[in-house]
């Protein structure tokens, strides 16, 4: 479904991604781990189409379509969802308003009519309950004054409403308390399906005990340097990046 081949990308003239390859098939969960500053968020942003990242080589296709040729909103409508490492606060734009606009944008692009108001409310209420978010969250400004953990839960809530085909979750588990981690993990698990794929960027093996990954990759210095199964995450947890990277380099 997603094919990343020899991807090179720079920020402000500095090359961050240096020939990255990754292939994700439908229904798979890929975890990406890696040291701070190795380029994990850069990869997520390049996939979502953020300005300021210059792709200098390689290709990305989603179901055979050139993702890099699409605007960020087109990618979203094609089913890409980015759960932000640092979700943005948008005072004055309520959560529900954002979600309705997002759903309708997708429907409009497909030539479908706008979502029925009653059906929409039912949908968001149900998903909010699943994420243990009070109804009052729906009316609040997007992430406005939310705690760190609430922001992350809100990202998964949005994902649940938008039902993407490919979810990129950038450190959605960081800053969560134990209960919130369970809520977020079960939110992710509830959305797993044979047609939907996940890329989970994480620093903690703990998330992967709740959400079983099919693959674990190590991203270092702009490339995937190792790929394995859950065992790799445990190895990293035990030995740290130095040990694992030393083994790669030798």
């Amino acid at each position, binding site marked *: 479904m997603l094919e990343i081949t020899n991807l090179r990308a720079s920020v402000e003239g500095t090359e961050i991604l240096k020939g990255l390859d990754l292939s994700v098939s439908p229904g798979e969960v890929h975890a990406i781990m890696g040291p701070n500053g190795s380029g994990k968020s850069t990869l997520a942003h390049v996939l979502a189409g953020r300005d300021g990242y210059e792709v200098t080589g390689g290709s990305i296709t989603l179901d055979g379509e050139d993702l890099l040729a699409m605007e960020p909103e087109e990618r979203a409508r094609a089913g890409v969802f980015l759960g932000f490492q640092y979700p*943005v606060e948008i005072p004055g734009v309520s959560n529900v308003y954002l979600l309705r606009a997002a759903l309708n944008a997708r429907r409009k692009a497909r030539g479908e009519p706008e979502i029925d108001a009653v059906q929409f409310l039912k949908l968001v209420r149900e998903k909010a309950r699943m994420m243990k978010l009070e109804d009052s969250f729906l009316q609040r400004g997007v992430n406005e004054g939310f705690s760190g953990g609430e922001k992350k839960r809100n990202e998964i809530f949005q994902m649940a409403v938008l039902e993407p085909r490919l979810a990129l979750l950038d450190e959605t588990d960081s800053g969560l308390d134990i209960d919130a981690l369970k809520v977020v993990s079960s939110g992710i698990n509830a959305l797993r399906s044979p047609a939907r794929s996940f890329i989970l960027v994480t620093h903690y093996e703990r998330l992967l005990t709740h959400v079983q990954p099919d693959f674990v990759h190590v991203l270092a210095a702009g490339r995937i340097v190792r790929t394995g199964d859950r065992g790799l995450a445990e190895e990293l947890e035990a030995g740290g990046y130095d040990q694992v990277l030393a083994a790669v380099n030798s």
Partner: protein
Amino acid sequence: MTLLEQDTQVLADAVARRAAANNDAAWPADLRAARERALRLFTEQGLPGTRSEAWRYTDLRDWGARLAKALGSDTRDRITVPDATPLPELEDAPTIVIANGCLSGEPGGLPAGVTLSRLGDPQGRAACADALMEQLGRGLDPLGALNSALFEDAVLISIADDARIETTLQLVLATSDGVAAQPRILVHLGRGSRARLFLRQVSSGEAFSNALIEFGCGEGASLDLLRLQEEGDRAMARSALTFQLGRSAQLDLTSLDLGGLAIRNELLVRLHEQDARVRINGLQFVDGTRHADNRSCLEHLAPRTTSEETFHGIADGRGKAVFNGLVLVHPGANGTDARLGNRNLLLSPHAEVDTKPELEIYTDDVRCSHGATTGQLDADALFYLASRGIDRDMARRMLVSAFARQVLSTERWPPALVTALGEQLTARLPHGDPS
């Protein structure tokens, strides 16, 4: 820069002719004398030029030309007066219409506790004239002098002591194409009274309006004022609103400037006695080649007085938005709490924002803060919305509208009205929501 001498003379002559024509022999002699003094003052000073600090950003040369032209042609009998579009919750509100500076018709349905008097009516004349004389004794700036020399009527709205008026009163200032209006209004809130006033400014074509409105709030009085300026896009309008707040009096003002080619507003709030409070939420929006200049001066004159002003500016196209906010804390105003914030959104590289929030403090025991920011739409927020599938235009529209709506508070006004105003804002703003 000053007006060309020739233009100045043409304007002075036009003003003098009109002043003579408007000087009603039935009005009290002292009032007529005061008007003559105002005329002399205006003739001597003319319109202020951009070298004067207060008028640095608003060049009145075009205003002078428009004024001279309007004063020169008497179209009074043939004009049509523009209407204000009705808003929800206010369809049946008692409405006072000041058309081209004169009270239009007899407003019906005024609630008990509200009296309306006007200078043109022998019955209310004395009350109006007294209030005006007090004002005229206080010194006038050139545009104040112009209004004082030329006003054709003055209206006094009085709220009786302890009257709690829950019905919203509407006050509409309407100016017609080709007319120079000088509305003059006085509003008195008696002790312990409460009132809600919705002030609307509308116009058509090449209107010129120079309104002076003075509010006096007695001890413990509470005034909620919503001002919606929707002048036509060729209008030039200046308004000066002054407020005098007595002990524990409260003013809550929401001020929305959406229209007009050239707009200048001056707001003076005197927190005259202890525990008086004012809260101001303002918005000005300019696009095209439109210009809006909002100045406010909040004077803390007594202990434990509070002011909180939040003013937002949005400038698109080649529009220019000017904000100047001064908080002045006088000696003895101990325990003053003052907050002043101005935020501006620049939507186009050709738009301009000039902002200057100022504090002048002459006592130690105060809590004051002020700040101003000018920036573009938040790129992170735009990307966040895009990443949810929302296209760029829609995302911009959402952020601009959210920024504008932040000044609308639902605490004081009926939710349906606030919603309608919010929709009106969104429709008026760049890429107004077509759906």
